[in-house]
């Protein structure tokens, strides 16, 4: 990480607010300060600041090419930022446990391992003993009530089942934060609806801070506690809309007046940003 030198500067820019007793819930989980990234001559992020709240599901939505995926890839360490600092409870990425789910489950899972061994793989990397690997994987699957034949290989499963295995693989390490990069966009509509329910259930069970990049506004609002709306690049926070609807949300939520109002609000901001050429 070449962002360490910025640590001191960012710290002084942003003195910790509130006493430590103000509770975990109130303190932001992820703090992003002065984030900058360019690809060639295109500036994607320029001195970008953002706080992500703890224990919430945050959807990231915005115009095409605005850097939605770049943002979570920088937070998850897949892309190096040019400048800036990203801290998790004041810790660096390599000091925390996190999970990442790719859009392309077909290429992200290991076809030579069974679904079960795929899920257990991150534990092996962490040098967890073989017996604990098995018991922790079984515990996770039982806990989430997943109905899958885990003895199958990924290529013997449907797309949705494979992506569910990917999500379980990301969750098995008990991550503090979970990233999903357009996880359902390679699935057909029926499977997408099913997977939204699965993700909502998993989120309600675990309460893990979750950052979801989505290209479907309805999905983004339906799943989120807050929708992060980004502007065209260089990206700014156009709005950080809270979605207070109770969980579990159902099909009825989609036609709920408050929900429809929030969605319309997000759409308005989105279109304003798209038109701002």
């Amino acid at each position: 990480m070449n962002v360490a030198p910025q640590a001191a500067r960012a710290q002084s820019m942003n003195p910790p607010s509130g006493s430590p007793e103000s509770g975990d819930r109130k303190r932001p989980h992820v703090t992003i300060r002065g984030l900058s990234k360019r690809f060639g001559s295109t500036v994607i992020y320029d001195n970008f600041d953002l706080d992500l709240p703890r224990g919430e599901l945050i959807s990231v939505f915005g115009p095409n090419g605005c850097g939605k995926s770049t943002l979570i890839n920088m937070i998850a360490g897949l892309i190096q930022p040019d400048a800036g600092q990203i801290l998790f409870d004041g810790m660096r990425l390599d000091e925390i446990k996190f999970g990442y789910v790719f859009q392309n489950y077909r290429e992200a899972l290991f076809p030579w391992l069974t679904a079960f061994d795929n899920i257990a793989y991150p534990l092996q990397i962490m040098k967890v003993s073989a017996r604990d690997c098995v018991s922790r994987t079984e515990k996770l699957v039982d806990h989430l009530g997943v109905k899958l034949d885990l003895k199958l290989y990924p290529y013997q499963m449907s797309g949705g089942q494979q992506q569910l295995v990917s999500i379980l693989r990301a969750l098995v390490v008990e991550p503090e934060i979970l990233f999903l990069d357009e996880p359902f966009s390679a699935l057909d509509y029926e499977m997408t609806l099913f997977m939204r329910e699965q993700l909502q259930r998993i989120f309600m069970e675990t309460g893990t801070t979750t950052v979801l990049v989505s290209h479907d506004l309805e999905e983004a609002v339906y799943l989120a506690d807050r929708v992060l709306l980004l502007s065209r690049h260089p990206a700014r926070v156009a709005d950080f809309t809270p979605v207070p609807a109770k969980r579990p949300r159902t099909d009825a939520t989609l036609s709920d007046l408050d929900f429809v109002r929030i969605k319309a609000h997000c759409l308005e901001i989105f279109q304003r940003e798209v038109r701002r050429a």
Partner: protein
Amino acid sequence: MKADSLEGFLPLVGIAGLLAIWSFTTWQGWVDPVLLPSPLSTFQALWKGMDGGPLGFDFVKTVYRTAASTAIATVIAIPLGIVLGSAEWLYRSLEFVIDFFRSTPASAMFPLFLVLFGVGDETKISVAAFGAALVILFNVAYGVMNARKTRLLAAKVMGASQLRVLFDVMLRESLPQTFVGLRNGVSLALVIIVVAEMFIGSQDGLGHSVFEAQQLFDMPRMYAAIFAAGALGYGLNLLFLLIERRFVHWSGK
């Protein structure tokens, strides 16, 4: 259901057709029996030769040489291919040399290897190993280089070290392509061995058997040796396919 159960027999149609045309041709006497003996006398020669006769001995010799050269090629080419494939700059700098020798007919190397190893088995085996090794090397390196980026990234994001990424992901990713190389390599090795047995002072082997039968105008025996060589080539390919299906079950899926 009926069509399904019949489908398995379709390959037999080609065999039956070939045998029918062949029998008819020899029965009608359209071709001089010295050039084309009847199927019956050919298969009698094949049976007699393989059942404790000299053909069986030659067959074993050719199997041994092909297996030895493929084994040597594999042991050298797979680790080398992994090294080259995982350092792309290294492969790019050696690509021309590998491609050049891969394109050079291995048979053109016989005189050189004769000088190096003399007229024994070493020459035949080492030329065949040389040809097969380049084919395997090329495929292994490409298999490693073309490992899916997302899969490597997935392992990295889970905290896998470089070494674990190499062994847990790159190696497995390269296996389907490695088997393509092995199947091509063993076929090439067999071709080189049979040619070497014909012309490089050989006393045994299928190539020698074909050549000697032709010299003696013992046509049934010559055809029998050709069939034995064909069966060997087909069998080796099938063997590698079965091994691949067993150990690289995800290939092509």
